[in-house]
């Protein structure tokens, strides 16, 4: 049975996620705001409409598993977990600060709803592949969703998992790539080009769907019709804008690490409130 105790107004949820992220990173001096913004719509649709999870019983065995492999955008995950009742809103105020359990890269210890701690890139898909394989072996019906970053696809370990998942026909596994086209120092195309990206996944035996990662209907449609192809794992390549929602943060390498202060914060909040 589905356990949806929260709003299915995913636009509103995405807006709240972004505002929380702005507040959390500004208050704690945390980075990666732009990486959280680029995936906010995907998270909102996942938690608002797709994931079979239960904040009252977060370790419910039949729950869908969600893994944030791009652990640096933890702020948005903590925000959506607070919005959905997994963790207390008050915890968000402590993100990234002295003594907090909400780390800059997502950690499961003491944080209900976080399956796996990540932060070093190239780990989440492998762990998710193991979960999906175990589910198949035990005839369990849950699905495994992994959000990855584009820069993360530089890590060779991912391609080990991509090979394995296709070979073992893990159609209960869904990789969603937040393809915001920027990594730490420069654009993806200037760093290590991924194109033709969809073709790479296809060549490895995955079913691939490319969507606009900010279009809630497109996200919802893609995630509602899984698996994309029976017998194949699904890759959703979500074309996104890094920093989406605040004009001066969009498509800028600067906001990979910078946090908003003073007038920047006021301007950012104003834009987010109008979303």
């Amino acid at each position, binding site marked *: 049975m589905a356990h949806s105790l929260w709003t299915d107004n995913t636009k509103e949820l995405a807006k709240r996620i972004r505002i929380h992220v702005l507040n959390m990173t500004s208050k704690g001096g945390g980075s990666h705001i732009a990486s959280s913004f680029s995936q906010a719509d995907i998270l909102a649709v996942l938690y608002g409409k797709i994931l079979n999870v239960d904040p009252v019983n977060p370790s419910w065995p039949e729950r869908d598993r969600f893994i944030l492999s791009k652990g640096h955008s933890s702020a948005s995950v903590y925000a959506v977990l607070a919005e959905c009742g997994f963790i207390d809103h008050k915890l968000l105020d402590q993100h990234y600060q002295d003594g907090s359990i909400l780390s800059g890269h997502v950690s499961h210890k003491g944080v209900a709803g976080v399956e796996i701690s990540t932060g070093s890139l190239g780990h989440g898909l*492998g762990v998710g592949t193991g979960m999906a394989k175990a589910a198949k072996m035990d005839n369990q019906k849950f699905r495994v969703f992994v959000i990855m970053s584009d820069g993360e696809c530089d890590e060779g370990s991912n391609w080990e998992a991509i090979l394995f998942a296709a070979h073992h026909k893990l159609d209960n596994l869904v990789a969603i790539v937040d393809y915001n086209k920027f990594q730490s120092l420069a654009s993806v195309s200037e760093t290590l080009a991924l194109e033709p990206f969809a073709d790479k996944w296809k060549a490895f035996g995955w079913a691939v769907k490319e969507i606009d990662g900010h279009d809630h209907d497109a996200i919802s449609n893609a995630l509602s019709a899984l698996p994309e192809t029976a017998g194949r794992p699904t890759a959703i390549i979500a074309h996104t804008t890094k920093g989406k929602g605040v004009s001066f943060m969009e498509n800028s390498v600067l906001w990979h690490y910078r946090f908003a202060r003073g007038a920047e914060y006021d301007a950012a909040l104003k834009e987010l409130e109008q979303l």
Partner: protein
Amino acid sequence: MRDHFIKRLCELALKDKRILLITGDLGFVVFDRYRQECPDQFINAGVAEQNMTSMATGMALQGKIVFTYSIGNFPTLRCLEQIRNDACYHGANVKIIAVGGGFSYGSLGISHHATEDIAILRALPDLTVVSPCGLWEAEEMTEAVAYHPGTCYMRLDKSFGNAIPAPGEKLKIGKARKLRDGNDCSFIVCGGILEEVEKAADMLNANGIKSAIYSLHTISPLDKEAIYEAALSSAVVTVEEHTISGGLGSAVAETLMDAGIHPSRFLRIGLNACFSSIVGSQHYLRERYGLSASKITARVSELLNRSLQ
């Protein structure tokens, strides 16, 4: 050791369907019986140790007891961060098995010399590190790690030594075995190099030097009481087929210093920090690097200022 491991694992897997074995494409012939009897509990992950270890974590978190298997440094150093961040931090029931400890695959070259693994892995929190000293220990340890909560690393090598257990003896993780009494010297040993130490102790005994031998098969957590007891003799000698930088000898030295115990004589026998571009059998390389029974005997007699006949 490897055959004793797989024999016991097969017995356990037949009884306990939670047990899974994942290999990194190694173990030709070795797994034939296991695969025949437990086909649904065997996965070949391919030559992909990072993914093997991450996947093992994911499976373990779904209730499986997952053994990962490969040679030497492949299931350990190659995927060290997967062991640390994935398996250990999540307290996952992942049991890492490396065959080919020390110079087991000496002729294959330095890629296959597993000579720093204990030092590196014992630094990880929430990882149990064991290095059985003989065939019986390897087999018993297989069951012990299977049901020991959390992530474990078991180092096996190609030795055939066997410290026969006392009747009814049980192997316990974290509890050293005292194999021999003697007040002139206490050997503290991990791994199959025990077979050389036992011969050395015999040679020393023939010269009137009585040695105690402790099998310290568990490096993390350490049996501190056994180490304190060993230090009551005239000399403490650690022996490992591993670098002396950070391994068993270092762990024993730290333990004694922390407790304010200063043995009158202390010697770490192992490999000096170097790569061996020279290849050869395990037997040959032990001799060349001072780990053979005769070399151990000579170093201990020198330590004790006793000449040998």
